[in-house]
């Protein structure tokens, strides 16, 4: 089985699906001959041509607005927003238009668009190349939000997403685009949306994370395990619809939970997880749910390592929660 990084896995999924389904088109800024600023669409232009691999003018609202029209007409567009930090000019098209087409038309129209966008910090990108805006979109009825943490899931989830009937925001953790490597089948396979993945079974505490944070959590838990602790680690993979069952069953078993994300804390996805755990597993809790997150500041350039949850901060929160 070939070993791929995240970029190669995304690229492989796009190629596979474009070969399988001629309705699939990709569009965005610099995605054609150049292959995208992170090379995720590399080679697609050469294989599928300018009609299906579309270099667009520099306008996110135009990219998403026209992707909506393409989907209404019956295509399966997979637009790329170059950085999640640049998605806001398309915010209205995403939250008011894309996410609402099925609902507002009484079920007559559907707009199955998959928006791919690299997100997150750790690449010395400062405020405009590091944000994690997932909470804005999870809060949007009608939109699914998917975030893979490894190459195998990236390919399988992206294939599921493109074949899904609903609009999806597919957020790719760019910090681990090349660092995360793993075996990825060359064949067609899917990883189901809405299903979390048990990364490590444990008994003392449930650690919930997604995207690049899984790797920092792994670093933290490795040390804790050496020290005799036994955490359970869950990769959420899909934030909406959330695999509530897996989360709640785990917390009922361990009685403790730590939530990790890069995004700012207030109204971040950790707030939702914490509330859900409180509502559905209150009597099983032995400790308050802990949040290890970015801070409620703009994403800083020089101090990004201080801003981002690191292994020490995560390990500390896990230990405190276990010892509470």
């Amino acid at each position, binding site marked *: 089985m070939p070993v791929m990084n995240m970029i190669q896995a995304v690229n492989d999924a796009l190629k596979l699906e474009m070969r399988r389904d001629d309705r699939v088109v990709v569009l965005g800024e610099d995605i054609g001959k150049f292959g995208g600023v992170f090379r995720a669409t590399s080679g697609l232009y050469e294989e599928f041509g300018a009609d299906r691999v579309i270099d667009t003018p520099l306008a996110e609202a135009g990219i998403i*607005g026209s992707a909506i029209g393409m989907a*209404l007409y019956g295509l399966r567009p997979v637009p790329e927003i170059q950085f999640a930090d640049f998605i806001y000019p398309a915010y209205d098209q995403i939250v008011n*238009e894309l996410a609402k*087409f099925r609902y507002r038309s*009484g079920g007559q129209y559907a707009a199955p668009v998959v928006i791919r966008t690299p997100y997150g910090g750790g690449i010395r990108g400062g405020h405009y190349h590091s944000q994690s805006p997932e909470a804005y979109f999870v809060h949007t009825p009608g939109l699914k939000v998917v975030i893979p943490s490894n190459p195998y899931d990236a390919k399988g989830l992206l294939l599921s997403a493109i074949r899904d009937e609903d609009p999806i925001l597919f957020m790719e953790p760019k910090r681990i685009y090349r660092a995360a490597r793993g075996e990825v089948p060359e064949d067609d396979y899917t990883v189901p949306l809405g299903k979390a993945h048990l990364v490590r079974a444990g008994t003392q505490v449930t650690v919930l994370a997604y995207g690049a944070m899984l790797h920092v959590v792994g670093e933290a838990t490795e040390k804790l395990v050496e020290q005799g602790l036994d955490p359970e680690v869950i990769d959420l993979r899909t934030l909406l619809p959330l695999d509530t069952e897996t989360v709640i069953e785990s917390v009922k078993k361990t009685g403790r939970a730590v939530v990790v994300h890069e995004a700012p804390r207030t109204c971040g996805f950790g707030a939702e997880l914490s509330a859900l755990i409180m509502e559905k597993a209150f009597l099983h809790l032995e400790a308050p749910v802990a949040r290890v997150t970015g801070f409620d500041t703009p994403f800083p350039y020089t101090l990004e390592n201080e801003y981002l949850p690191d292994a020490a901060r995560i390990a500390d929160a896990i230990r405190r929660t276990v010892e509470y």
Partner: protein
Amino acid sequence: MTNEVFSVLDDDGNVLHPEHEPTIAPEDLLRIYRGMLLVRLMDERMLRLQRQGRLGFYMTSTGEEATHFGGAYPLRDSDWIFPSYREPGAAFWRGYGLREFICQLMGNAEDPIKGRQMPVHHSVRRINYVSISSPVGTQIPQAVGVAHAAKIRKRDDVALVYFGEGGTSTGAFHVALNFAGVFKLPVIFFCRNNGWAISTARERQTAARTFAAKAVAYGLPGVRVDGNEVLAIVSVMNQALARARGGAGATLIEAVTYRRGAHSSSDDPSVYRDPSEPKKWEHHDPIGRFQRYLERRGLMTAQLQKQLQEEIGGQITAALKSAEAVPGKPPIETMFADVFAHVPPHLLEQLEQLQQAPRSESTHH
């Protein structure tokens, strides 16, 4: 590009430019006339209903009916229409029923969009009449996407997208015309310049001399047409369609008209505009002008006009009675349907919670 406004007919229905008079079969001319009259009469009746408290909200098109039919008539059925909220005639032209129209306004149990949107936000997929959105201009890049998809699929379908002159101030207008120009897409941008965006006069939307002039910057042709003259609109639409289907790309049409009524039933124009202004436009009424043209051609008589008026009035009454007889609102579970293709577990849970929750008496009414 000129600043002149193109008309085929004068206000008395005389043909000014026989060479531009489109060839339209007499039965189609009468259908267009009948359609414009239907919109006029429907608007009068629905606004009255709103004033009586039987409808929550309404928007009239009085004086702008020619833009609905001049735009929709020259299209093929496979062409797409992206309306804003003031083109119901384009839907009627393609077979949207009066009863469905009124059920939508009422948001009742037989509303085709299940009570999901305010009145006048129609959506009729079977006739390629795309769901209406309130935020102005959002539909313009979507229409460009349909045109782009048609081009990718090598079909010669065209997308027609309506918006008001206020819509040209939005970013969506800019990105849409820019994409259409760059990719040479088969889309027709139809700007109804009716002078007013709620209370904001046309002069506050642009310092350009015309809205059509904006096409130049995107490498597109822009034409100004008399928006109160259906034959002129058909004529410029035919040219734009030939250009689009021939692979030459998009056209921006500025239809110069006037919003004689209020923006909506919630608006009061007496606060911001001189009441003599709409009066002046009555003389250019699109239905009157077209009627006089038909009379000159021997296709319309006072008797036929009266007969049509009564017939349409009767149809509206029948549709209204039938719509008002629909019992109740859409059932509560419809609130949770169509958010996604399949109802996910968290929405099923919320539906159950709502079904089991106590409710204030007033919630039912």
